[in-house]
């Protein structure tokens, strides 16, 4: 029969809608109310020192809106006014300096898009399939366009002559919050591509992302992207803070641990279909889509398997891969209504190909916690529902 949504006059076509002043800073329409960050309460002792997850299963494109970009803080997100903000540079510099927020806005600015991935993303999956949804298995990631000043610009303003040979020097960074979350970064990386950011996706940083100023460390684990950045110290050695010794180190099968595992290797995940984004339309045309990224450069290709890794076909990249930023991929296909074991596999410009979980376990064992960039499998059933599973190698 005919569709009453077409044949009958609808109230939205008769009455007026919201005026321009209704929501001075807009929110998503109420029908998208399920597209929100979510927490896994049993992961941590308290939500003040915890993490939530980006709803990647419900997003498309590559830019993550700040309002649903995952949060991780160690002593809560603080409210720090621009007027109260100070940034100090000290240590092995010619002139220790203090900047106000206004000072930072007077340096030449850059705009660059990068992903930020927590080192623990997918960490709960080491020993087996555990959390049932791309949001939970892969949602400790976001991708934003940052506006700010390069770290090199600020370090050169303070002068690096006092540091002498820069090749073995470090930059220690810390935040203004109660955790302060100090980390050491090799000088080479600091001068290469790190940024002091104050805008993301065009707007001021959200409180939970470090308003008014955060550090950007492209391609490297999110814990190093210090929020509420208050101090930069040039040092002769790594400080070996809590977050670079007791945490964010990777224990191997024999009990020794890797440290300074900063870079996030190439990784991808199918975001739809997935457990939170099942197929509801039955057989026929189907868009399989997902995200790929590499901390070592640009994504050059993504393969998709629908049979658990027996055969692979090349997906279409929505846009050419950008270095250390998310890349969207699509596989425009026809679903025959049969079960699928859906996987994706990223390639980056170094020639690296994303490994299986079995390959990673072969090298590292199961106790690494961090840096799990294995191929993910979704079991898509005949009714269109999907489940997080692990398959034989």
């Amino acid at each position, binding site marked *: 029969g005919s569709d009453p949504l077409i044949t009958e006059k609808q109230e939205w076509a008769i009455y007026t809608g919201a005026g321009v002043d209704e929501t001075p800073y807009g929110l998503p329409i109420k029908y998208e109310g399920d597209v929100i960050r979510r927490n896994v309460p049993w992961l941590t002792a308290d939500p003040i020192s915890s993490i939530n997850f980006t709803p990647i299963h419900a997003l498309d494109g590559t830019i993550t809106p700040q309002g649903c970009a995952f949060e991780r803080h160690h002593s809560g997100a603080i409210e720090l006014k621009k007027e109260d903000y100070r940034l100090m540079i000290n240590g092995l510099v010619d002139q220790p300096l203090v900047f106000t927020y206004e000072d930072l806005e007077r340096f030449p600015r850059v705009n660059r898009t990068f992903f930020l991935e927590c080192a623990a993303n997918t960490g709960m999956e080491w020993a087996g399939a555990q959390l049932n949804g791309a949001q939970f298995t892969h949602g400790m990631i976001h991708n934003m366009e940052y506006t700010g000043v390069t770290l090199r610009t600020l370090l050169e303003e303070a002068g690096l002559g006092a540091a002498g040979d820069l090749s073995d020097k470090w930059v220690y960074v810390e935040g203004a919050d109660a955790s302060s979350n100090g980390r050491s970064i090799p000088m080479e990386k600091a001068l290469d591509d790190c940024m002091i950011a104050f805008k993301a996706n065009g707007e001021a940083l959200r409180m939970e992302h470090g308003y008014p100023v955060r550090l950007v460390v492209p391609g490297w684990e999110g814990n190093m992207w210090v929020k509420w950045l208050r101090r930069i110290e040039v040092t002769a050695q790594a400080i*070996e803070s809590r977050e670079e010794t007791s945490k964010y180190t990777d224990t191997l099968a024999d009990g020794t641990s890797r440290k300074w595992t900063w870079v996030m290797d190439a990784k991808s995940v199918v975001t739809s279909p997935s457990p939170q984004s099942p197929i509801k339309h039955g057989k026929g045309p189907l868009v399989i889509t997902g995200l790929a990224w590499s901390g070592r450069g640009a994504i050059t290709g993504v393969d998709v398997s629908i049979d658990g890794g027996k055969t692979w076909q090349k997906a279409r990249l929505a846009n050419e891969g950008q270095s250390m930023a998310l890349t969207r991929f699509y596989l425009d296909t026809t679903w025959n209504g049969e079960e699928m074991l859906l996987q994706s596999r990223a390639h980056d410009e170094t020639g690296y*190909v994303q490994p299986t979980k079995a390959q990673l376990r072969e090298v590292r064992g199961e106790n690494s*916690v961090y840096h799990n960039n294995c191929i993910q499998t979704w079991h898509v059933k005949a009714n269109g529902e999907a489940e997080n599973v692990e*398959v034989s190698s």
Partner: protein
Amino acid sequence: EKLGLGRAALPEEIAAWNHDISPNGEGLPVGSGSVEDGEMIFSENCAVCHGEFAEGVDNWPKLAGGDGTLADKDPLKTIGSYWPYLSTVYDYVRRSMPFGAAQTMSDDDVYAITAYLLYSNYLVDDDFVLSNENFLEVEMPNAGGFIVDDRPETEYTIFTEENACYENCKDTVEITRRATVLDVTPEEEGTETVTEAAVVVEEAVEEPVDTPAVEEAAQEPVEAPAEEAPVVAAMSVDPELAAQGEKVFKKCAACHQVGEGAKNRTGPVLNGVIGATIAHVGDFKYSKDFTAAHDEGFIWTIENLTEYLHKPKAMFPKTKMSFAGLKKDEEIAAVIEYLKSASQ
């Protein structure tokens, strides 16, 4: 090339913020602290989360034990079993602890806590005194347990284009694990529009056998459901004072929640506390002092709550609340006003 922006950092400003301590001891302040003092300071400030013997409470980090477990299936990583440098303990405790009152301890107290943590890991004797002078003499058991990232040699040579298979990559594929068997995924709130095809748990739910952790994740969900708040008799509230109290409450918020949806954390939910019998939250494990007072019918009034918040341990010596108290009467009045308003 320089723009001349910013101003010179003053020596006292650098001294106020430059607190990082290196493995070689650089940055250590002059001072000392004993295991004996540390035990008392730890009990008052740290034990509520980390346990009297640093063994950990609930999901909070265990700081002691785990010796020789690093190659086990679920290694226990503590200061004794895992941390390579003692400088990290001092640096972290001084900068980030205690949770909710960071950067409030004296340098000597931090030495004492560090000494006690060594003692609780059987690394020093009970008469040990740690100072900036003997700091580097302490040997950390896992100091040699770390290697610099070797992925370039061990992984990047294997996970390559040349080794990538496209056809007939394996003969058969079996599902070996399913996430729904564990059933540890949170229920989604606000998903009315998508749950039509909610995933059905096909198999009997088993105990989570493998629950790898992010940080100090627990083996099983530990959720303290909120108790129904007792009905609070309508109390008049001064909104301005309550707003000031909301700011003061930040000092409490590391452990306590109040208001709609509040849950027990390290401390009990505070809804309806004024006018309630002490220890009124049924599923919270209170101190012996509190349960005894409960049995005697002690009721929280504005007066006795004011006294308690001024110096908690003077009123209930065994209270689990490791909070020194609010010094200013105005702050106490404001926070009580906030508790009234948030409970309604």
